[in-house]
């Protein structure tokens, strides 16, 4: 089905001087789509040309529309020699293909050159007319919406969650083609940029087709990655979760009252787009077939335990032979088993019951088993047919199967928070996948009639249900210490829970959370090919084991008992392996209070040694106490009654499943539990352990007023202000000392991360009190002896509650303002508060005074960031309104300054000065989170997925490597903002920098960097504005949505 793409080149500005003689430029523009090219006239001798061209029309297939970017090239006309290119703009027109997204692209876009960076801006108008509107959802994947957000987007509700979609495309990397030897770096970079644009377009289209096949209309949690395999090719792969989404009609009522507080509404909309109100699911399920299950209820299979789900059952044969794995919990009773069975069958139909979502509509996530992960080491030069995707497909299939069987072993039928990643060094490639084994409700999956059961399930679990073990107590897949849930006292829970998902909003949490990182560096010998791969495979288990131990110890040290958003990254270099595990630790009230850490010496003969040990023990105990105070963890005192664990030996509980296979089927299972040792006992029998403990204790706490987490929401903080600051920080560290021990390396790596965090806190000190959310660390080993750490996060400041009111600390009050606006939930929390505050009344106020009265944190007293934000939000508001009226030529004039009275009666008065100081650039917010505090997202405009290459041959002149990268990152931000603004948006949510590959050659004065970023372009409206304009919100929204029509 064809479509018509129309583009108009309006004007340019700030163009570079291309003609030295006149200090001007004779610019014209080439507009290219597919194989068709149009040109504008030459606009002579101007740095601000006004082409105002006609509409260039391309009549193309919608397949091309999806695959191809619109390519705009700005050139300088030269009568005698070849025309010089000024730069290019690639426009992804995908957002225009979906009726619910943007309708026009219009605005100033930076003209980008891979050698010179941004060189001026160009104003364009792009529209698409799709013919045959009626038919279009049948024929192609146009219209399938893509979201990077890993939860159901705010203004939609999920009708159905279909499941996992994946796709992978391969192409030859232009950088490695023979032609690259003769073409210029610019041509090579542009070929690469264009290819990746094309490949991502193709990938999206193919995934879209799969989604349509499944009957969905959207992909949520879309994660697209590049593997630069070098000689063997360039791989673009993506995973996502197919869903059927329905737009929540923005009724004035909902708009003005986004809290969605009326319970009747909750009944109808199970709180999807909103903050997932924790409605006990006795409310009506979306399908009317409620009664049916009662009749069909038969406990036939409820006690039969198929497939003992042993650890070794890691068959690589997919799809078949797995039975209906999950073992029904004895305590759950027949109903639960039935549910299990039914959901299971729904999921069994799928190849992979995986979900890239990390946050779920309430009632969807029933139980969480634990983290499952799989890794595999592959050799890229062994690919038979590098240009075809088969081999890579097979690799990933292998890993996914493994993940699936791990989940099964945990008694779970699904994997949530699923993600995949790679690390490549020369010809060795580590493929990793991880997720959280879980049991899901069938409510949003498939074919209605299995609905009622949650009422049995959910009534008892207001915020602790997901902690209850999904596996069978008697047939436990790994040794674990189980207790009855500390909330409901009816079901068993493990003592520690590790997950890759976000903290469920309904979870009961005590105190605040914090970022916990385990960092590890392991040296390895330089080797080639298979030897190298084997060496890496052998190292991996140890690496993971130690990361796990570190995480566990650090978690205990903070007095917490659960990890969310766990992300383990393993990066491979020629002479070392880096492991970085980040997660957000919290104290879940449902889980038992963690014990302390005991140190035991192996040779207790020496007095001084004993002394030393007891000193350390004291230090550790002090740290735990201090941390509890810092994070406001006041666990309710409960009689410790460890209820009949089937396995008497207390062992380390949560466990990572992993395996590695070198080039093929060699799969092994690693038991990560500490043998026979008690998890809480650290034996310091060798220097390693001493080092470990030191490392444990040297983690410096966050400065006063700062909190950090790597999840979407920080437990314990809700009252965000509108001040947000997204940032990216990159550091490259050179290890000059070649012969370093593992310990030495560890220390260096750990210090590097710690210092980076410290720098971040210092930079953002003006935002205090604030929380760094979604701290996403990426490590890489770009070269021998180089370690690169990149961080992207958002700093959000929050209001400190009225200090010392009733001598209570904020944690409790924030709990009161729990995200879910559900009344029941709220009450529950209030009760909880009373309990906790009485249990430990002294420590909290102290904690507050410490935080609140930190003298220097407030000293400069320029809280300009928040002011800036308020100011900018005001301007945004203006902008938005202006936008709605006439896009394209937005100009807000602000006469902020009055001319001061003139001295001595000057006869003429100054006209309003600074008439054009008011910036004409719309403010675009960026955040890695899926929401903007204090604002409501009213429209998703489409996915932003951009890939840029920047190269320089004058590194020193551009301020060295730091100057080069600083400029480049700033340029990438600028281009993202400009494209979002052109779509009519004012923010990017779920922003992430997926790739930042930096290569340098200082001797040649050269450097190259590749950056891939993605996110969702949105329009948001401040909640305060919503209230203000509540008189006619309807018209406001319609205006905004029509705003795109342009001039």
């Amino acid at each position: 089905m064809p479509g018509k793409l129309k583009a108009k080149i309006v004007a340019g500005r700030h163009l570079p001087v291309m003609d030295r003689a006149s200090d001007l430029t004779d610019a014209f523009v080439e507009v290219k789509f597919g194989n068709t090219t149009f040109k504008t006239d030459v606009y002579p001798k101007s740095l601000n040309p006004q082409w105002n061209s006609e509409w260039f029309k391309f009549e193309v297939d919608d397949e091309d529309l999806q695959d191809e970017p619109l390519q705009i090239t700005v050139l300088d006309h030269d009568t005698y020699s070849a025309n010089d290119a000024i730069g290019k703009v690639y426009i992804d027109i995908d957002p225009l293909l979906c009726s619910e997204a943007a309708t026009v692209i219009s605005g100033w876009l930076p003209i980008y050159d891979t050698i010179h960076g941004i060189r001026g801006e160009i104003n364009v108008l792009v529209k698409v007319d799709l013919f045959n509107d009626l038919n279009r959802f049948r024929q192609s994947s146009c219209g399938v919406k893509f979201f990077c957000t890993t939860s159901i987007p705010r203004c939609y509700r999920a009708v159905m969650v279909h499941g996992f979609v994946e796709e992978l495309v391969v192409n030859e990397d232009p950088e490695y083609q023979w032609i690259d030897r003769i073409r210029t770096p610019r041509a090579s970079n542009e070929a690469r940029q264009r290819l990746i644009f094309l490949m991502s377009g193709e990938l999206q289209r193919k995934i879209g087709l799969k989604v349509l096949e499944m009957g969905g209309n959207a992909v949520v949690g879309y994660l697209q990655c590049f593997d630069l395999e070098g000689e063997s090719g360039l791989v673009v792969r993506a995973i996502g979760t197919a869903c059927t989404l329905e737009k929540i009609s923005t009724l004035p009522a909902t708009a003005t009252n986004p809290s969605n507080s009326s319970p009747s509404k909750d009944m109808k909309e199970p709180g999807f787009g909103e903050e997932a109100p924790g409605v006990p699911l006795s409310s009506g399920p979306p399908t009317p077939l409620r009664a049916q299950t009662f009749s069909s209820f038969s406990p036939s299979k409820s006690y039969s335990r198929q497939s003992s789900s042993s650890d070794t059952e890691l068959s690589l044969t997919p799809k078949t032979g797995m039975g209906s794995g999950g073992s029904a919990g004895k305590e759950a009773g027949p109903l639960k088993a039935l549910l299990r069975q039914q959901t299971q069958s729904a999921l069994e139909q799928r190849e992979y019951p995986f979900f890239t979502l990390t946050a779920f509509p309430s009632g969807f996530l029933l139980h969480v088993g634990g983290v499952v992960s799989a890794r595999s080491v592959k050799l890229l030069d062994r690919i038979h047919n590098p240009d075809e995707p088969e081999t890579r497909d097979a690799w990933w299939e292998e890993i996914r199967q493994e993940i699936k069987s791990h989940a099964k072993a945990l008694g779970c039928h699904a994997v949530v928070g699923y993600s995949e990643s790679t690390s490549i060094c020369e010809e060795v490639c580590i493929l990793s996948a991880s997720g959280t084994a879980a049991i899901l409700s069938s409510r949003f999956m498939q074919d209605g009639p299995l609905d009622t059961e949650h009422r049995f399930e959910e009534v008892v679990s207001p915020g602790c249900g997901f902690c209850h073990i999904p596996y069978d107590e008697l047939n436990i897949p790994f040794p674990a210490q189980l207790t009855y849930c500390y909330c409901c006292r009816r079901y068993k829970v493990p003592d520690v829970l590790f997950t890759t998902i976000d903290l469920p909003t309904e979870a009961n949490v005590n105190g605040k959370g914090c970022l916990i990182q385990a960092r590890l560096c392991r040296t390895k010998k330089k080797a080639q090919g298979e030897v190298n791969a084997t060496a890496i495979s052998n190292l991996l288990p140890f690496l993971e084991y130690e990361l796990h131990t570190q995480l566990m110890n650090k978690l205990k040290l903070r007095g917490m008992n659960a990890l969310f958003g766990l992300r383990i990254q393993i990066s491979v270099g020629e002479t070392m392996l880096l492991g970085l595990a980040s997660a957000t630790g919290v104290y879940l009230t449902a889980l038992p209070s963690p014990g302390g850490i005991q140190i035991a010496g192996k040779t207790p003969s020496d007095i001084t040694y004993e002394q030393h040990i007891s000193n350390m023990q004291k230090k550790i105990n002090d740290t735990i106490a201090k941390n509890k105070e810092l994070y406001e963890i006041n666990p309710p005192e409960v009689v410790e009654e460890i209820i009949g664990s089937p396995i008497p030996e207390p062992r380390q509980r949560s466990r990572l499943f992993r395996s590695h296979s070198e080039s093929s089927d060699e799969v092994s299972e690693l038991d990560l539990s500490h043998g026979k040792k008690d998890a809480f006992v650290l034996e310091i029998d060798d220097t390693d352990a001493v080092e470990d403990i030191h490392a444990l204790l040297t983690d410096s706490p966050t400065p006063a007023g700062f909190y950090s987490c790597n999840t979407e929401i920080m437990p314990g903080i809700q009252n965000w202000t509108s001040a947000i600051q997204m940032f990216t920080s990159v550091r490259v560290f050179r290890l000059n000392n070649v012969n370093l021990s593992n310990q030495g390396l560890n220390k260096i790596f750990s210090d590097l991360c710690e210092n980076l965090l410290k720098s971040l806190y210092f930079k953002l000190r003006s935002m205090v009190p604030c929380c760094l959310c979604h701290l996403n660390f990426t490590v890489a080993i770009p070269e021998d002896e180089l370690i690169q750490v990149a961080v992207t996060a958002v700093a959000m400041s929050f209001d400190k509650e009225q200090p010392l009111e009733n001598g209570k600390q904020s944690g409790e009050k924030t709990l009161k303002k729990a995200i879910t606006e559900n009344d029941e939930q709220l009450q529950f929390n209030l009760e909880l508060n009373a309990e906790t505050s009485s249990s430990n009344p002294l420590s909290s106020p102290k904690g507050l005074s410490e935080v609140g009265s930190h003298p220097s944190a407030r000293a400069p007293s320029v809280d300009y960031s928040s002011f800036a934000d308020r100011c900018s939000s005001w301007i945004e508001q203006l902008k938005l309104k202006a936008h709605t009226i006439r896009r394209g030529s937005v100009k807000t004039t602000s006469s902020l300054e009055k001319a001061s009275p003139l001295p001595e009666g000057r006869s003429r008065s100054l006209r309003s000065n600074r008439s054009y100081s008011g910036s004409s650039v719309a403010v675009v917010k960026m955040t890695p989170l899926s929401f903007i505090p204090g604002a409501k997202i009213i429209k998703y405009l489409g996915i932003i997925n951009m890939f840029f290459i920047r190269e320089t041959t004058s590194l020193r002149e551009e301020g060295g490597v730091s100057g080069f990268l600083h400029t480049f990152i700033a340029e990438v931000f600028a281009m993202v903002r400009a494209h979002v603004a052109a779509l009519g948006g004012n923010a990017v949510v779920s922003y992430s920098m997926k790739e930042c590959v930096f290569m340098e050659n200082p001797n040649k004065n050269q450097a190259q960097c590749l950056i891939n970023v993605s996110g969702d372009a949105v329009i948001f409206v401040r909640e305060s504005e919503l209230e203000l304009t509540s008189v006619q919100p309807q018209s406001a929204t319609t205006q905004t949505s029509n705003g795109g029509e342009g001039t």
Partner: protein
Amino acid sequence: MSVELDVFVGNTTVLDEDVYQLWLDGHSVTDAVTIRVEAGALQECEANAEVLHSDTMDQFRTFQMCEQLLQSPSKLANQLLFQIPPHRQTMLIERYYEFDSAFAREVLGKKLSKGTKKDLDDISSKTGIALKSCRRQFDNFKRVFKVVEELKGPLVENIQRHFLLSDVLARDYAAIVFFANSRFETGKRKLQYLSFQDFAFCAGQLISYWTVGAVDNMMEDMDVDLEKEFLHDLKDLKVLVNDKDMLDQHKSLVCAQLRGKIKVFSEMEASFKNLSRALVNIASKLTHTKDVRDLFIDLVEKFIEPCRSDKWTIGDLRLFLTHYSSSVHTLEAFRHQVIWDRYMGVIKSCILKIGCGSCVLSQSSNKTKRETEEQDNFCQTLQKVSPPLVCLPPPYFLEETTGTEQTPVARLFSHLLGLLTTAIHLFIHPAVCVAE
């Protein structure tokens, strides 16, 4: 082991005003870190020196990247590279264009050319302002001058429009541009005591009343040059001193008005003709560019100094000038009232400013008796300090302001030099001596 690369980029550009000032002041990163440590930055946020260094580097890099935009501030508002809230943009621009009065005073009236740029080393060592900062300030002057030079319309407004500066700062720039364009002499030793602000005030007066734009709001003409026609018309004022009757009549009118009102009445009466002649002569000579340049030195030498030697107070001066200019209206034979008012209005306020600057006295009229006495004696005091000198010779200033350690010999030498130059000065201007 070393940090090879270290960057931090915020979606909203992170700017630290204190670090910005350090950068503007021309400090190196290392210096800036030291200064920040001394200012107690380490106490904030549990920072260490490494963190501070990284932050400073980062900020300096950001400012450097912004610098190009700051040089054409209107671009800052619609560039896309840095997302900076408008009020912070204003701050960045304003601070970037702010200058040290001491530096501006040195450059005032000089040609903003490469030659002057070469002298920046000297200015830097003289004023104690870092050379880097001097360069920035000089380049700012030059840039503003270049842009505004050829533009039509009001000068201050043009500067504001193109450089988005605050009203106050735009006025200062207008003064600098005006002085640079007309190349007023400000470097003479007798003018050394005047500050930049004194001159800026005078420039404001000249721009407001003596340029083309001053007469006609709608005139699309330049503000930078004095109105030729007006300067030509000033020749007609000569009649005031050439016509003996008129001169006598004028004198008697003024004397009648001032009798008993000023303490230096007799001196005034004695020197009235000289003073009037001086003022009118200055006016009539303004058609020559050279004399325009010497306007301020002439005012000082031919008018202020005689007054000063007669121990006039600023109050006396004001009363005299007020009546001197107003009584012309009653001279029936005089026909150039408009020109006269336009001329005297500016001259009066300039003289008062300059005179005031020399006395370092406040202009307020209701002073206590003691203060008035002090004013009366100010010249005496000055003369006591250095009897043959009207004002302190520059070497004294130099010595004090720079604060560099000089050997006693050098000190003596510079003192002698001061005396010598004053002597030469007096020798060159015998007319003044005779008049006195």
